[in-house]
């Protein structure tokens, strides 16, 4: 049985760069991201939850972005139920989580494609960063 922390981390990845899809007979969890390391984490979490019992397929889409697909009706139904159709993180697990778990979940969410967007001011003449400019980290989803 997977820990609540594992399920929350997996939900974080699915809610940011994944989707629950397929027809009613063949449901899938699909994770699409450029970073190889995130795919490895995703697969490890899936194996922790299922005990190595599901089919995992990886391929590149037409934009050469890697996709990892899990063919599991049971797992997809479970996450649909857990996260609701709005792709929310499971609130009851989130509220009971400790700070370490929250940090890990945020690390995963901020590491997914599209977030964060860094807007650093760069001085081309000096070839370094301008001091004291408005640097920020954004989360856009």
């Amino acid at each position, binding site marked *: 049985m997977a820990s609540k922390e594992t399920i929350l981390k997996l939900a974080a990845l699915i809610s940011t760069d994944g989707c629950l899809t397929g027809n009613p007979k063949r449901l899938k969890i699909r994770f699409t991201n450029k970073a190889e390391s995130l795919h490895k984490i995703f697969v490890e979490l899936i194996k922790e939850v299922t005990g190595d019992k599901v089919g995992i397929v990886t391929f590149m889409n037409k934009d050469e972005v890697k996709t990892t697909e899990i063919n599991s009706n049971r797992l997809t139904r479970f996450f649909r139920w857990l996260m609701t159709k709005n792709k929310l993180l499971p*609130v009851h697990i989130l509220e009971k989580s400790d700070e370490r778990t929250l*940090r890990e979940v*945020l690390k995963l969410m901020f*590491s997914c494609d599209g977030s964060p967007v860094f807007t*650093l001011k760069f001085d081309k003449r000096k070839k370094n960063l*301008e*001091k*004291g400019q408005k640097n920020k*980290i954004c989360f856009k*989803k």
Partner: protein
Amino acid sequence: MLLLQVAEMLKKLGLSPQISESEIIIEKKRDIDKFSKEIRFVEDVPMSKNSKWFGLSKNEVLDFIISSF
């Protein structure tokens, strides 16, 4: 709603992010510093191809931000 959940988690960890309709922004020096020390990014996650920082990892750019203060 997902944005609000992320903002809530950041607040629980003592950060004070700004929230707009479509994004959460962490821009205070104290918050970026805390983010860098306590959260960071997964190692080797690259910057996007559209970014002028393409070729570097997100953590490397984060360290640039910290060194620019």
